[in-house]
């Protein structure tokens, strides 16, 4: 067609075979266009799926979003533990090597205050892809790094959000609260027991990223937000906790002891108002402690002791409730008494003929306690002991509670003589929290309450969940409780001087001076001095357990623990505005 028109015009200047050659040029163009078309069909239709999948794998990135750990507040609203989100600086030396190393080092030294050799050592090896350059970045440092990276001055860095747990109270309530390790897992106390509730659930974000790891704004972005952890409100009152810790420290100094426990409990509902142990640990300086450290253990729930004479209240309650004795039951109390081949003696080894049960408590007579237990019989005695919660965990919401050791009738290691020893609190191992709750039975009219450390959970969404107090079982009748409290009151007031009695408040309680069992017998001259009591007598609201281990000046509960009990009662009752006794 072209050649025919060329002929028609017959232009002398037309190059030879012009039309045909134009067709050749056009054909060449068509071949190239066809080659492009063939490729396009191949890549965009036939292999499009595979290529798109490869591109997607290349770009897709899944990143975890840490959830925020909930705070732990005291009953009065003070933060005992809280989490702060901070950044740590991660470097990829292999990528940093592509930048001006000198500028990068200068930036890090001048902005973060790192010293030059450290920086060089950390980013100097370009074969590494991941190194932690700084652990705790101040927020202004984080933003300086972000801006410098955005401007392209430095590269190969990444900010990794990490949570730091802060314990404003340091030592205060450390055993109650526990701590969180570097991986965000709680250990001991509340932090361990409520780890799941506090942790929440981490989220993740799936996004498309460019080769430098930056999110592509128009790419896939699929975030699953984290569920932050709940905030826990303790039953612990910060002021009461402080009183307990101060008095405990003062007592240890005064009586030359290195360890002890003070528990302050509301016997009506089992609320732990204060839980103090020494030695304790400083939750703000965990780096100073070995990973496994005795100081982390909470003796109030995780260590056992022979309660000694305080246990006589349980024996007496059982005898009264079963009806085998009454307050006026009289008995000759020998100074030394042989029971199933073993000799048991009172503390002064004196005979007390024709004594009533109040006198048994007042003199803290071991042989009197044996009389009551023997009158009950082993079967009934151990039924009551179990009912009081011994040999079983109290179920307190703190980590690592132990059950104690109760050898009862029927167990292989039990001897009939154990009944006598058990009646006054020897050859039985209990935790302080078990003893406190058992006394709580007497204080609250006969109910064994489950102790609790957390009273309220506030979820991240703001839902408030009140944790109801729960009773485990009725142990003694209310009348037994009233009778026993009256007996304890009379017994306390027949002892002079009684260092446990407050001038302002009417309390009842019992001293204990326990021998310390060890392999091969009893440790000589070493005791655990304790006092457990509660008040006000008419309407007990506060129960205090004082336990001082191995006091070096004075061995007796009545000398060591009683005055501490009184100190605690005076301060706590005043703080709680409990009216003074008439």
């Amino acid at each position, binding site marked *: 067609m072209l050649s025919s028109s060329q002929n028609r015009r017959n232009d002398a200047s037309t190059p030879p075979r012009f039309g045909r050659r134009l067709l050749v040029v056009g054909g060449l163009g068509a071949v190239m266009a066809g080659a492009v078309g063939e490729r*396009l069909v191949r890549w965009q239709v036939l292999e499009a799926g595979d290529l798109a999948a490869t591109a997607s794998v290349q770009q897709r990135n899944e990143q975890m979003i840490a959830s925020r750990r909930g705070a732990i507040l005291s009953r009065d609203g003070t933060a005992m533990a809280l989490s702060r989100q901070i950044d740590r600086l991660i470097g990829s030396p292999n990528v940093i090597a592509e930048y001006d190393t000198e500028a990068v080092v200068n930036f890090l030294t001048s902005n973060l205050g790192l010293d030059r050799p450290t920086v060089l050592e950390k980013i100097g090896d370009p074969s590494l892809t991941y190194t932690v350059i700084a652990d705790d970045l101040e927020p202004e440092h984080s933003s300086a790094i972000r801006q410098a990276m955005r401007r392209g001055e430095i590269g190969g860095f990444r900010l990794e959000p990490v949570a730091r747990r802060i314990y404003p109270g340091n030592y205060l309530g450390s055993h109650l609260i526990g701590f969180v390790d570097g991986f965000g897992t709680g250990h001991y106390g509340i932090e361990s027991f409520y780890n799941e509730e506090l942790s929440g659930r981490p989220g993740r974000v799936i996004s498309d990223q*460019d080769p430098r790891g930056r999110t592509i704004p*128009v790419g896939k972005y699929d975030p699953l937000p984290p569920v932050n952890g709940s905030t826990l409100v303790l039953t612990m009152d910060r002021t009461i906790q402080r009183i307990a810790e101060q008095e405990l420290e003062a007592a240890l100094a005064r009586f030359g002891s290195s360890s002890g426990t003070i528990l302050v409990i509301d016997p009506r509902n089992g609320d732990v108002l204060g839980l103090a142990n020494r030695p304790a640990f400083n939750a703000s300086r965990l780096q100073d402690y070995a990973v496994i450290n005795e100081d982390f253990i909470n003796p109030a729930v995780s260590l056992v002791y022979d309660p000694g004479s305080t246990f006589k209240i349980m024996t007496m309650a059982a005898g009264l409730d079963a009806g085998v004795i009454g307050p006026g039951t009289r008995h000759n109390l020998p100074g030394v008494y042989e029971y199933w081949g073993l000799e048991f003696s009172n503390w002064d080894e004196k005979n007390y003929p024709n004594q009533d049960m109040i006198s048994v408590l007042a003199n803290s007579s071991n042989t009197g306690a044996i009389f009551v237990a023997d009158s009950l019989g082993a079967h009934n005695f151990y039924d009551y002991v179990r009912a009081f919660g011994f040999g079983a965990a109290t179920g307190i919401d703190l980590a690592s509670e132990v059950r104690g050791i109760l050898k009862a009738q029927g167990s292989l290691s039990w001897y009939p003589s154990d009944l006598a020893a058990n009646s006054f609190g020897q050859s039985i191992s209990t935790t302080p929290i078990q003893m406190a709750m058992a006394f709580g039975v007497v204080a609250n009219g006969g109910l064994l309450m489950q102790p609790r450390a957390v009273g309220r959970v506030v979820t991240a969404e703001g839902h408030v969940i009140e944790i109801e107090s729960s009773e485990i079982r009725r142990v003694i009748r209310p009348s037994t409780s009233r009778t026993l409290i009256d007996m304890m009151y009379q017994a306390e007031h027949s002892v002079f001087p009684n260092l446990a009695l407050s001038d302002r408040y009417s309390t009842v309680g019992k001293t204990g001076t326990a021998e310390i069992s060890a392999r091969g017998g009893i440790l000589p001259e070493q005791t655990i001095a304790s006092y457990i009591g509660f008040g006000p007598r008419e309407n007990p609201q506060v129960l205090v357990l004082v336990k001082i281990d191995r006091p070096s000046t004075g061995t007796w509960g009545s000398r060591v623990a009683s005055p501490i009990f009184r100190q605690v009662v005076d301060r706590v009752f005043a703080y709680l505005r409990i009216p003074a006794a008439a």
Partner: protein
Amino acid sequence: MATSARRFRFLERGALSWPELDPLLLILTVVLPLIGVVIVASALMPVLADDATAFGAAVLRNALITTVGIAVALGVAQVDYRRYGPRSWLLYAIAVALLIAVLVPGLASSSGPRRWLDLSLLSFQPSEIAKPALIFLLAYWAGRVGKRVRERRTFIIGLALVGIPLVLVAVEPDLGTAVVILGTTSTVAFVAGARLRHFLLIGAVLIFGFAASVARNPYQLTRIQAFFSPGDDLLDTGYQAQQSLLALGSGGIAGKGLGMGTMKFLYLPAPHTDSVFAVIGEEFGLIGTATLVILFVILLARGLWIAHKAPDTYGRCLAAGISFQLAAQAFINMLVVTGRLPVTGLPLPFVSSGGTSLIVSLAMLGVLMNVSRAASLDSER
């Protein structure tokens, strides 16, 4: 192009009447650069993420250059192409001088291949001037020599005229442009009626030269091998080729939509210039890429039709050379992006962002429109 007020007398005569402009080329003159403005803005999105001001400046600059380019095309369309003929020697001389200047240390861009002249306003690529200069010169010269085009003497002079700038471009090095220049000048010579024997001679020399080069530099063979198996050589040129294919495949038939492509975020090399076709492929799919192929096919077909209708040999060769150069460069760019040719660094005419390339390409389209006008006036006569 040096023009004076005298040359713009057409304005007084009201020469800018639309019917006199080739309607098909007019559409291409507007549509292709507009596609470019839109897709370049999309391809520059990674800049937006870092620096919004720089993004705005780059998009605005490209839109401005495009507007200027379209205006230049419409203006040039009014200037009789025959006026350039005698002056094509001057243009050629300037082009050769600039190509030499680019090799002078201090005048050229500091690192990498010496392709650009750094002027204060826009970096300037002399090879973009060399391409039209050679077309003008050869076309004009073909018109002058007439039937003597088949003589050996003509062939040798032509070879020298093409050879000087070609070697200068090749040593920059810019082999892609060298190939385009070789292809375009060959086309002009071919349609001018040069002897096929002479082309075979050039072909033989080139094959020998290539074989010698590979024999001396075995790494060139490795590169070619890498090109043919992109998967094995992920960090070198093969990686870039691979990324283009991933972009095309991600787009599929319908594309992800304007702006929604992700491959331009540092995966594609030079997404707003050399790889802009891959961005089109990802965001507009096969529909977008095929449309672009068809537009360039139309450009070539229309250009060859104009060549056929042109009143003189100069116009015929000019139209064939210009249309082939623009279309061939587009197809070569597309074949690079689709992995059929090794990475060369050629922009996609009219679409890629870039000062000189865009304006020169549009100006050449303007010249083509003028040849078309002359052809239609001639046939009316």
